[in-house]
């Protein structure tokens, strides 16, 4: 995954609370291999939201309401946004799992408590810029600071790959694994019997 520090693009707003991951991508599309692209599934069944997105083709910065991406852990919700060209979502809050998934795919979850100034600015123009280093989103003449966990910011900027990074700690992991209490291992020959609730 390539890192980035600045992104210039077009903004679009869906100022609705609780846009959950079931809305972002309906479950029926999730058996599709990623290589086929997920962009066309984004908000597929949400006609009003879809129309707003279609009116801003090429938009790459989404301004949304509270608790964006709540619900399921389906990373496909992030794939749909990323494959539709989005690089950042600006919202007052995000689902915890969604936000982590977003960062793992180079999509910036930028927290802005009050999106009203951005929505006002969007009435006069949609040219926007995200400065990840400075944590500022600019829309026309309006510049608003945003919050992001420092860890996530660093990860987005560096485009870190977790698996490669973790493998540098192989020795420590092996030592930790060897020290786990034996009872934590599942029995290799599980007892026969019902195992059913009683």
């Amino acid at each position, binding site marked *: 995954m390539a890192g980035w520090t600045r992104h210039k693009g077009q903004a679009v707003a869906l100022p*609705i*609370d*609780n846009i*959950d991951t*079931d*809305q972002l991508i*309906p*479950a*029926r599309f*999730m*058996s599709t*291999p*990623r290589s086929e692209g997920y962009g066309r599934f984004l908000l597929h*069944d*949400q006609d009003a939201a879809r129309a707003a997105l279609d009116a801003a083709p090429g938009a790459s910065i989404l301004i949304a309401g*509270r*608790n964006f991406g*709540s*619900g*399921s*852990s*389906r*990373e*496909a919700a992030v794939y749909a946004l990323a494959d539709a060209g989005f690089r950042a979502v600006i919202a007052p*809050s995000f*689902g*915890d*799992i969604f936000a*982590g*998934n977003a960062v*793992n*795919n180079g999509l910036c979850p930028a927290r802005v408590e009050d999106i009203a100034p951005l929505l006002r600015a969007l009435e006069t123009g949609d040219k926007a810029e995200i400065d990840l280093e400075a944590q500022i989103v600019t829309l026309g003449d309006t510049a608003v600071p945003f919050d992001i966990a*420092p*860890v996530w910011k*660093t990860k987005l900027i560096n485009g870190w790959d*977790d*698996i490669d990074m*973790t*493998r540098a*700690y192989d020795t*420590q*992991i092996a030592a*930790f*694994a060897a020290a*786990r*209490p*034996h*009872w*934590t291992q*599942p*029995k290799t020959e*599980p*007892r*026969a*019997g*019902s*195992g*059913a*609730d*009683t």
Partner: protein
Amino acid sequence: MSTLLDKLWDRHEVLRREDGTSLLWVDRHLVHEGSHHAFAKLAERGLPVARPDLTFGVADHYAPTRRGVAQDPRIADMIDRLSANCARHGVPLFGLEDRRQGIVHVIGPEQGLTLPGLLINCGDSHTSTHGAFGALAFGIGATEVAHVLATQTVWQTRPRAMRITVDGTLGPAVTAKDIALNWIAQLGADGARGHAVEYAGSAVRSLSMEGRMTLCNLSIEGGARFGMVAPDAVTFDYVKGRPYAPDGAEWDRALADWAALASDPDAVFDREVHFDAGQIAPTVTWGTSPEQALPIGATIPDPARLPEGKAEAARAALDYMGLTPGRPLEGTPVDQVFLGSCTNARIEDLRAAAAVLAGRQARVPGMVSPGSMLVKRQAEDEGLDRIFTAAGLEWVASGCSMCVGMNGDLVAPGKRCASSTNRNFRGRQGQGARTHLMSPAMVAAAAVTGTLTDVRPLLQGRAA
């Protein structure tokens, strides 16, 4: 002065980076059909599964509930892909032919794979269910699933600690589901965002393991990735003798380790919230977010009377749900019922629904999908299946089924479903489907009357 969260975290922390992120050891990794993205990432790199002995495959999200009936090939393919990935990497699989198959969050505990003090990951947000045992259990995305497969570890920043204390006694037919819907309605669907929730208090202690699992399961609907209950005698009784659980001297060692798994009396939480169990009524959702829930005796809210910020969401939700403000919730006609899911399809849930349905007819069609095939068999041994089928409901095999609709069990557009599941999101049970969340007993009551109904009068003179 540590919280349960701190203790569990410290027991699994391999290392902590300077930026505060921890690398955590994963004791159990449960993978379902949705893991195909993660296995594909592994294949791209040519990496093996680091610890197939700690990884378990489960067919549930796409599992057909009418076994033997020809499946949509795209759905069947998802199960085949899981089987192939598990076989390739030597990962044990609870597949469709396995008598122990079922929903991952039901069979983990049922098989004794879920134990107090473990760290449990699964690519599913309802992994918080396993926290009911005093485990550190949380849902992860596909990139993280690939990471756990490759390294048996996960990077995570310690969440803030929150305690929800529910004291007092629950009224008749008031359940863990109602505790959960109630706190989410009070605090919001993001009320616990960024926090790990520990549930405490006499009402929580009084819950069975099934109830505690329901409570922890729904943590994510209030924004918390983690839910947990400190283990106690109820927990140990449930775990003891389970197929994969430790036994003999190992059991004694485990018990000794588990004894410390409680928040210290002087532990400080970042946030504390208290509820009175006696004030909680059977609760039903009316909107498209779990926070849009009310006691069954309430009226459907009027957006004009709601605070700004909630009004617009309520208006949109009522429009989607086809409901009229100001009308009583009770008496709203439903088209069908669904009893199932990782939230409420354990034996106790089926018993509660059967207690309402016994000797009665359902006025609307419905489906009952047990949480596992072993729960199904146990229910059949107890005669519960005959109560459901005599009432006119369909008794089917186990899987995620109509909670998420991936296997083709869908609610048709515009249809209203009384459901024991976890999400009333738009389109969750099918495009245009209207979902009302409630406890299994309340689902049974809705079946009996064909409307949203307070179950309590239906239980008068019956053993609940």
